[in-house]
């Protein structure tokens, strides 16, 4: 495959960036999207140019590090992470536009790399359960209904990649927060801190500069883990309950 790549280049957090165009020949359809960028970077290295910076780690779709806006879709045209996207999803001769996540809460550090520390701070604000450390308790000592356990597990698959924010026309992180609040709220261990959790997480979310949700649904369409919109309803319900409890 021969491709024309339009890629955002930016040398540092405070410098101005611009789209640059690159030609890449002989791309195998079996390459992953990131391997295709690796090939481009090798060629740039050989020419003595600065390679394109992008995030990646596990390259098996479970770590949440990679994430690019590809032709206007977060993680590209398939429902998966950028590392699990393959070049067979594109056509020979295609022009591919590659941009970093655009959110003022995720500042661009360099080229396609953004700082998602805002997500860490939302988790720090309330996305946890406080438990005594030491020897693990007997797993069956706290019963959890099967449906709740399944649902908690399904939404716990959120890898915090930020595609929901990147896709949202409002730049909201509600799907991310909803996944965490639903996951912990379904389990007995999540109950003692339930009200504080939702209030602190949403307040931190707002403080970071994410937008408010208008239930458009672009987030769930972009989510590589297919987190459903239900979790935003649960998030809203938990916040409403917290208001009722005087938080």
């Amino acid at each position, binding site marked *: 495959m021969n491709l024309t790549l339009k890629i955002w280049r930016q040398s540092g957090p405070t410098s101005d960036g611009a789209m640059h165009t690159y030609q890449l020949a002989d791309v195998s359809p079996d390459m992953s999207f990131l391997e295709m960028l690796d090939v481009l970077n090798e060629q740039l290295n050989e020419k003595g140019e600065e390679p394109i910076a992008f995030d990646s780690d596990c390259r098996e779709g479970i770590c949440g590090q990679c994430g690019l806006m590809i032709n*206007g879709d977060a993680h590209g045209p398939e429902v998966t992470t950028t590392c699990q996207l393959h070049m067979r999803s594109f056509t020979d001769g295609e022009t591919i536009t590659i941009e970093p996540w*655009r959110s003022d809460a995720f500042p661009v550090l360099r080229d396609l790399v953004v700082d998602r520390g805002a997500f860490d701070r939302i988790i720090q604000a309330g996305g946890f359960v406080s438990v005594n450390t030491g020897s693990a308790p007997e797993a069956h000592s706290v019963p959890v209904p099967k449906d709740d356990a399944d649902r908690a597990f399904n939404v716990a698959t959120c890898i915090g990649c930020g595609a929901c924010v990147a896709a949202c026309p409002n730049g909201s992180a509600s799907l991310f927060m909803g996944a965490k609040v639903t996951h912990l709220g379904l389990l007995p261990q999540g109950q003692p801190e339930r009200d504080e959790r939702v209030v602190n997480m949403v307040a*931190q979310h707002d403080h970071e500069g994410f937008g408010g949700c208008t239930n458009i649904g672009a987030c769930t369409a972009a989510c590589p883990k297919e987190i459903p919109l*239900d979790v935003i309803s649960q998030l*809203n319900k938990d916040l409403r309950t917290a208001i009722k409890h005087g938080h």
Partner: protein
Amino acid sequence: MSTQLKTPTLVKGARASRTTIALKLGMALSGFVFLGFVLAHMYGNLKAFAGHDAFNEYAEHLREIGEPMLPHEGLLWILRVGLIGSLVVHVYCAVVLWRRAARARTTKYVMKKQTGATRASLMMRWGGVTILLFLVWHLLNFTIGKVNVQGGATNDPYNLLVDTFDVWWSTAIYIVAMLALGAHLHHGIWSAAQTLGWTGTAAKRQRAKTVGFVIALIVSVGFSLVPLAVLAGIITK
């Protein structure tokens, strides 16, 4: 772009009532007040099909509800105060959330698809502005100003209605407004249900979306029937 990176801080003393979700709750609850209003208003409008006297009697009766316990137009003013209050809440929350959304992405994408979004969901803000502008004209037309676009009398509600919708461009304004209202309700009703936390499963979400679509259709068609019937000569003086 190219601004100095902020030093991140953690929020202290968070209050639920100060969050974006509290604003969304304000949108949802005030929106439901408007939904109740438009359904009642549409019912009243359809009285036009019952003829001159039935329509005008209905209009007069609205002013007499609760008499003599309430003064003339008493209940009407209670409802109006509730509606004005809801309008203030709805517009205030919308403006704050709109500004937040604009600040959340100051550098736009070169290329962005709206995968997974319905057209109605993307039209909420400008559609809302359209409805607000229409509301100003509508109140000037029938309530505050009583403007007869044909220059005739304005003291008879039924005749003012017929005079208004006999003019094609006047009817066109109302039809465009009802399309905007229909789109607004189509997304707004299910979105409000979601904001209130009523759509915690895929089945409930689908039900809320269906209810939203059906009510939006009923309201936009129901309101459009009277102007179109006047223009078609079905409703006459």
